[in-house]
């Protein structure tokens, strides 16, 4: 395995190779060799140093397009500064609320600078008064100092990157990764127990770069191995899923990762006539992760695309999370998904994964074994290891465990205990292979993105008629699909329930691009609180699932009563 190295060192090595990024956007295709990317990053680095930023300062990067984003990320790092990736606004319709959310992150993180688009600079200048540490708000285009290499260089244990994901705004939670973390994970991914990356490989991706799989897996993965990467905008894929497959065809792509929903979108939306021009025979690693993996989706994709050369053995279902850089476990290559059919009764009643015989069952995909030099274990509530086939929390240890949550020592100490990262996900081990079967934490996962209920609650609690302290959001597992998103809001009696339902849907849609499947408007006092003032989310969710929340104001139209689906994965509480 390669020696640990910093991001600027990896870029310098890649700049000596004949490789680079190809940025696709509409009909425009731009190739930038790693040497050119490095040159542009030098300009960014020099500009930031000249602007007075000092070693270790945090620089928020708010750029949606891949080329400016990566150039800035590397430039910030070359200058000895710390880049923080923040979610860019989806549009301008809810810009003020977006800025309010983002200003909280800027303030809590103590960011010294924001690099964004020229169009957004005035908006960020408008909130700089709320962020005392913020000294510089600048457009990417104006970072054009001469490309002189800066003197400052990060060390291996310096923070390389802080990732603030889409849902981390109500209590900003930035995943801080050291250069050593990044190098350990990326090299393990590329290594012999991972993708076995060779000089013939080419990655193709549409994943957003503020997503760990998009940035680490599909942009840094190629860079650290000095292999080419083709990057396209996520919106282009979502608009026409076939564009992903066309890019793989055209560039003879060999490696591409995506969440389960992307494979599902391809099956549902790629039309028969589109298959004609496709050739997926070069695609040797079709990675799947970042959200629960449904065996049916993988099987349907393999069946649909077999006639254009796709091989089911290319599937690589894997497990990981941002707090572990990206990947935690990989199955052996060229095997195809390994499935186990598990009795639901044994899982819920005994917390054991016993093979199903006649009773209700759930099919679970193996996510493989821990990467070399990394460890995985299953633990009970006290953190003690459990034997094979016992269901418990997934814990991870090794060089990829994050440095911590940025400026959140208490939260970090709760999450990393005795060197073990507590993932909040549930699973079991069988012959060293990890099977993931649910989660302990209250996360809502839709289309590969994780949303914190607190963020949804915070986003809507100022709407007319909503009692500020009486909002609860949660996800309800929906058989084999994305979570159903539910918001329960106490009414203050000052707005009509119908108007409140509409306003809540609109706000969450605008801010998160997420549809709230069901809104329940309930009387004040319904949402209980603990003595420390936290909302009792689990209790409200249980009431909702028992159908006890429909009175007296009613539930939104179009809502279907929640059912316990045959394939539901049991929750721990």
């Amino acid at each position, binding site marked *: 395995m390669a020696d640990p190295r910093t991001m600027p060192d990896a870029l310098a090595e890649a700049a000596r190779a004949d490789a680079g990024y190809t940025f696709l956007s509409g009909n425009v295709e731009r190739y930038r060799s790693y040497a050119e990317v490095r040159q542009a990053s030098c300009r960014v680095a020099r500009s930031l140093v000249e602007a007075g930023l000092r070693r270790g300062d945090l620089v928020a990067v708010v750029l949606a397009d891949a080329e400016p984003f990566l150039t800035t990320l590397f430039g910030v790092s070359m200058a000895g500064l710390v880049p923080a990736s923040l979610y860019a606004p989806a549009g*301008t*319709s809810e810009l003020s609320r977006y800025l309010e959310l983002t200003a909280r992150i800027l303030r809590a993180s103590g960011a010294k600078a924001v690099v964004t688009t020229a169009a957004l600079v005035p908006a960020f200048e408008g909130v700089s008064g709320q962020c005392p540490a913020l000294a510089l708000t600048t457009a990417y285009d104006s970072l054009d100092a001469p490309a002189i290499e800066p003197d400052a260089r990060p060390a291996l244990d310096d923070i390389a990157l802080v990732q603030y994901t889409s849902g981390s705004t109500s209590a900003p939670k930035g995943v801080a990764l050291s250069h050593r973390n990044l190098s350990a994970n990326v090299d393990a991914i590329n290594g012999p127990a991972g993708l076995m990356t060779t000089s013939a490989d080419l990655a193709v991706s549409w994943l957003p770069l503020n997503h760990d799989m998009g940035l680490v897996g599909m942009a840094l993965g190629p860079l650290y191995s000095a292999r080419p990467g083709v990057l396209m905008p996520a*919106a282009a894929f*979502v*608009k026409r899923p076939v564009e992903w497959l066309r890019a793989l065809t055209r560039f003879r792509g060999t490696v591409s990762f995506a969440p389960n929903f992307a494979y599902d979108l391809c099956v549902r939306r790629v039309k028969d006539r589109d298959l004609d021009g496709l050739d997926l025979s070069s695609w040797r690693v079709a990675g799947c992760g970042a959200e629960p993996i449904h065996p049916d989706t993988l099987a349907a994709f393999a069946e649909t695309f077999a006639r254009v050369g796709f091989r089911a053995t290319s599937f690589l279902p894997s497990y990981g999370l941002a707090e572990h850089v990206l990947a935690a476990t990989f199955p052996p290559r060229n095997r195809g998904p390994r499935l186990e059919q598990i009795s639901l009764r044994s899982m819920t009643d005994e917390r054991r994964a016993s093979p199903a015989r006649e009773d209700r069952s759930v099919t679970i995909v193996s996510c493989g074994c821990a990467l070399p030099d990394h460890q995985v274990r299953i633990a009970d509530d006290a953190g003690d290891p459990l034997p094979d086939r016992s269901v418990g929390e997934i814990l991870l240890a090794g060089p990829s465990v994050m440095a911590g949550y940025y400026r959140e020592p208490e939260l970090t100490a709760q999450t990393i205990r005795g060197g073990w990262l507590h993932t909040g996900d549930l699973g079991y081990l069988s012959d060293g292979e990890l099977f993931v079967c649910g989660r302990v934490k209250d996360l809502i996962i839709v289309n590969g993105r994780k949303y914190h209920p607190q963020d949804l609650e915070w986003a809507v609690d100022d709407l007319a008629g909503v009692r500020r302290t009486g909002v609860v959001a949660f996800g309800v597992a929906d058989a084999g699909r994305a979570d159903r998103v539910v918001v329960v809001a106490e009414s203050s009696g000052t707005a009509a329930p119908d108007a409140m339902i509409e306003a809540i849907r609109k706000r969450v849609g605008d801010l998160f691009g997420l549809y709230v*499947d069901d809104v329940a408007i309930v009387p004040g006092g319904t949402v209980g609180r603990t003595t420390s003032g936290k909302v009792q989310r689990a209790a409200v969710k249980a009431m909702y699932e028992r159908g006890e929340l429909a009175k007296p104001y009613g539930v939104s139209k*179009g809502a279907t009563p929640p059912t316990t689906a045959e394939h539901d994965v049991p929750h721990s509480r």
Partner: protein
Amino acid sequence: MPPASVAIAEGVIGVLKNVSRRPIEPTLASDLVADLGFDSLQVLEVVAELEDRFDISIPLDDVPATRTVAQVVDQVARLVGERSNG
């Protein structure tokens, strides 16, 4: 509404019904997200279907600002007009 726009409105509503996973009855005043339940993925699916149906190209930058069925119809009508005049 001129006859051409009526045809476009019918076409747009047909696309919306096809893309939605729920039984919906869109009107010109319906909001795509709040009333019809489209998430960001489905909005882009609608865009692709409209492009195919009307042989137009809808700039992605305009998508977030488009909220109601009437706005979609107006935009499609404008793009269809530009295509036939241009």
